[in-house]
C-alpha cells in the first residue's frame, strides 16, 4: 500500500537525483525537478559541500550542467575546498559542465542612492545558465545579500522574484541558508522556498561529532522524516538512511570455508554462505581475532581479496601475532590480496568509521571483510547508535555479496547467559553466530566454541574445544564428564584414561583368546590319547584273535597227527579234508 503510494507520487512529481549516497533514498529519487530546494544549517555543517556535490554529480553522472553562484567564498577557494572530495571543478569548468560565479557584495564599497533592483544578479545568473545550458543552480549563500545591501525590502521582493524566475526557467536549484535562532533560516528564506527544505546539523556528543540531515519538508512527495547521520568522506557526502533499508539482497547458495576444517564441519560440513555475516563473540583472549585472521587467510588462499579492519592492533602487530599460530599473512599482503586497515575507534565518529569502511570496500572490492572488533566501535556510542550503523554496514556488504566476519568482545559477567545477552542487539543482524567462551576448571582456562546459530544450514549443537597452537587453530571434541565438559588437561587425562582402559580390554581379549587356544590343545591331546588307547585295544584284540587261531590250527594238527597214529590213512585223509 505504502509502496504503491510512493511510486504514484514519484510519477507525479519529477525528481532530479542528487547522486549523493543515501539522500536519493530518503527523498524517494532526489530533489524536485525545476524547483528550488532550501538547504539550511549552522556554519560548518556541510551545506556548501552538499550543494557542490549536487552540482558535480548532476554534471558528471546525470548530464545536467550546473551553475554555482557563490556569495561567500570565491571560485579559487571553493575549488580548493572541494578538491578534498575528489571533485575537480577546474576541469568541469573547462568542459563547460559547471559555471562558477562569485558574487561579492561589500557594503562598504557600495553607496546606495535611489531606486534599484537586483536585475544584475538575474542577468549574471541567466548568462551563466545560457553559457553552459545549465539545468541545475546553486546559490550559496544568498543571504549574504542581506549583509551587503541595506534595503531589505528590495532584497526580499527580488528574492521572491528570483525563485519564481528559477522555477519559470525550470532550474532545479539548491539555495543554502544559515540557520536562524528561532527560524529555519536567519532571514526567513523558507518563506520563499517552500517546495523542499533540508536541514543539516552538526552535533557533538561525548566529544564525538556527528553530522545529521533531515528532510523537513518535501511538498508533494513522501520522504523519510527522521534525522539521518551523514558524513563527508573522501568520495563526497553519504547519508545513512537506516529506516529505508531494503531487504532485497540476493542469497547465494555458494559456501565458503572458514579456514578451520573442523569449524566448517560444525557448520553443516561446508562452512558459511557467501555474502552472509558471521559474528564471533567472546570474552577477552578467547581467540576471536585468530578466527578472523584465519577466515581472511582462507579467502586469500582461494585467491580472493580480503580486508581486515582492526580497531585494536596495528597491522604489523596482527601479522606478527598471527604468525605465532601458524597463520602467515605477510605474503598475502605483499601479493595485494589482503589489506589491513588499523585505526583507533576514538579517532572519529561511528559514521566516519563507517564511511571509511565504505570507501575502502568500494575501492578494494574484497570478497571477505573482517571487522575486529565491532564492540570497540560501540565504546563511545550507545547501542541505539550502533545498531542502525551496523545494519547499514551489513546491508551494504550483503548487497555486494561480501562475506563479513565481525568479532565482538563480550564484557562477560558471571551469569551463564551473560555472553549471549550482551550481543542481543547485533546478533539479529547476523546469519551465523559463534560464541567463544573460557572455561576455568581443574586449575586452567580453556577455550570452547559453540555455534549459537547459523541460518540456513544444519549446524552442530556440540561444544568443541578450541585449541590454538603454532600449527593454527583446531577444534577438538570435548569429553563429557559427570556433569561438565572436560577440556584441556582434564580432556587429555580423560583421553589417557580411556586409552589405558582400551589397552586393558585389548589384553583381556588376548588372554581369552590364548585360553581358548590352550583349551583347544588340551582337547586335541585328549582326543589323541583316546585314539591311541583305541588303537592299543584294537591291537590287543587282534593279537588274541591271532593267538587263538594259531592254537586252533595247532590243535587241529595235533588231532590229525594223533588220528593218524591211532587209525590209518583214511582217517588221516578225512581229517585233512575236514580241515579244508
Amino acid at each position: 500500500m505504502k509502496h504503491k503510494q510512493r511510486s504514484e507520487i514519484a510519477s507525479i512529481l519529477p525528481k532530479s537525483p542528487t547522486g549523493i549516497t543515501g539522500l536519493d533514498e530518503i527523498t524517494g529519487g532526489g530533489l524536485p525537478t525545476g524547483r528550488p530546494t532550501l538547504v539550511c544549517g549552522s556554519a560548518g555543517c556541510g551545506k556548501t559541500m552538499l550543494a557542490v556535490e549536487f552540482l558535480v554529480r548532476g554534471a558528471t553522472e546525470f548530464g545536467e550542467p550546473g551553475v554555482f553562484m557563490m556569495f561567500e567564498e570565491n571560485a579559487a577557494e571553493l575549488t580548493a575546498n572541494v578538491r578534498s572530495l575528489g571533485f575537480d571543478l577546474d576541469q568541469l569548468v573547462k568542459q563547460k559542465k559547471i559555471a562558477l560565479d562569485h558574487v561579492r557584495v561589500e557594503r562598504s564599497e557600495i553607496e546606495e542612492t535611489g531606486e534599484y533592483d537586483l536585475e544584475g544578479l538575474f542577468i549574471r545568473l541567466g548568462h551563466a545558465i545560457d553559457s553552459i545550458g545549465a539545468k541545475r543552480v546553486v546559490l550559496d549563500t544568498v543571504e549574504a545579500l542581506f549583509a551587503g545591501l541595506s534595503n531589505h525590502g528590495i532584497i526580499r521582493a527580488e528574492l521572491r522574484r528570483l525563485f519564481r524566475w528559477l522555477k519559470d526557467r525550470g532550474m532545479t536549484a539548491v539555495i543554502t541558508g544559515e540557520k536562524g535562532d528561532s527560524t529555519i533560516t536567519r532571514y526567513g528564506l523558507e518563506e520563499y522556498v517552500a517546495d523542499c527544505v533540508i536541514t543539516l546539523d552538526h552535533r557533538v556528543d561525548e566529544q564525538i561529532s556527528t553530522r545529521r540531515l533531515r528532510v523537513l519538508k518535501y511538498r508533494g512527495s513522501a520522504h523519510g522524516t527522521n534525522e539521518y547521520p551523514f558524513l563527508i568522506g573522501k568520495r563526497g557526502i553519504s547519508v545513512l538512511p537506516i529506516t529505508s533499508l531494503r531487504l532485497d539482497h540476493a542469497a547465494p547458495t555458494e559456501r565458503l570455508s572458514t579456514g578451520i576444517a573442523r569449524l566448517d564441519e560444525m557448520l553443516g560440513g561446508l562452512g558459511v554462505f557467501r555474502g552472509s555475516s558471521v559474528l564471533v563473540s567472546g570474552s577477552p583472549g578467547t581467540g576471536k581475532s585468530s578466527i578472523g585472521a584465519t577466515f581472511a587467510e582462507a579467502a586469500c588462499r582461494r585467491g580472493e581479496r580480503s580486508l581486515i579492519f582492526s580497531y585494536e592492533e596495528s597491522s604489523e602487530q596482527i601479522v606478527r601475532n598471527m604468525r605465532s599460530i601458524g597463520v602467515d599473512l605477510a605474503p598475502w599482503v605483499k601479493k595485494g590480496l589482503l589489506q589491513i586497515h588499523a585505526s583507533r575507534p576514538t579517532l572519529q565518529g561511528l559514521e566516519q568509521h563507517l564511511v571509511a569502511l565504505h570507501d575502502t570496500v568500494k575501492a578494494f572490492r574484497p570478497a571477505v571483510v573482517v571487522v575486529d572488533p565491532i564492540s570497540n566501535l560501540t565504546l563511545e556510542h550507545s547501542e541505539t547508535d550502533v545498531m542502525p550503523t551496523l545494519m547499514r554496514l551489513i546491508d551494504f556488504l550483503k548487497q555486494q555479496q561480501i562475506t563479513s566476519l565481525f568479532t565482538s568482545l563480550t564484557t562477560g559477567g558471571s551469569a551463564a547467559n551473560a555472553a549471549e545477552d550482551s550481543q542481543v542487539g547485533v546478533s539479529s543482524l547476523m546469519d551465523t553466530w559463534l560464541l567463544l567462551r573460557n572455561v576455568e576448571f581443574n586449575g586452567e582456562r580453556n577455550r570452547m566454541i559453540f555455534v549459537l546459530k547459523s541460518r540456513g544450514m544444519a549446524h552442530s549443537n556440540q561444544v568443541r574445544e578450541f585449541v590454538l597452537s603454532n600449527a593454527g587453530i583446531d577444534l577438538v571434541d570435548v569429553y563429557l564428564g559427570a556433569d561438565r565438559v572436560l577440556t584441556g588437561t582434564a580432556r587429555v587425562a580423560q583421553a589417557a584414561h580411556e586409552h589405558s582402559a582400551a589397552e586393558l580390554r585389548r589384553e583381556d581379549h588376548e588372554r581369552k583368546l590364548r585360553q581358548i587356544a590352550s583349551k583347544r590343545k588340551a582337547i586335541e591331546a585328549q582326543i589323541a590319547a583316546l585314539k591311541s588307547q583305541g588303537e592299543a585295544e584294537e591291537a590287543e584284540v587282534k593279537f588274541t584273535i591271532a593267538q587263538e587261531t594259531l592254537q586252533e590250527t595247532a590243535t587241529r594238527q595235533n588231532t590229525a597227527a594223533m588220528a593218524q597214529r591211532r587209525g590209518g590213512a583214511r582217517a588221516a585223509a578225512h581229517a585233512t579234508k575236514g580241515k579244508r
Partner: protein
Amino acid sequence: MSTTTKMTKAYELRLYVAGQTPKSLTAVANLKRICETHLAGQYRIEVIDLLKTPQLAAGDQILALPALVRRLPEPIKKIIGDLSNEERVLVGLDVQPVKD
C-alpha cells in the same frame, strides 16, 4: 568631453543598466546632470546595457541595477540606484561639490 586637461583629474565612469527601463533612463539623466554640474570637462561616461552584454556583469561585480562604477581614479567605487540623491552620488564618487 575635454581632451586636453583631463589626464590627471579624469573620472572614468561606467553606468550599468538593463534595457531602457524608466529606472535606467532616470539614472542616465541624473548622472549626466550631476557630472555636467560638478565634473565638467573631467569625466567620461560609458553606458553598458547588460541585456546586450551580460558577460560584462561579473567583471565589475554588478548585482543591483542601475549601478555606477567609478573606474578611475582608483579605488573603484560603486553606487547603486537611480542616482536620484545628488549629495549621495557625490559622496559616492568622492567629488567635492561645486558651489554655485
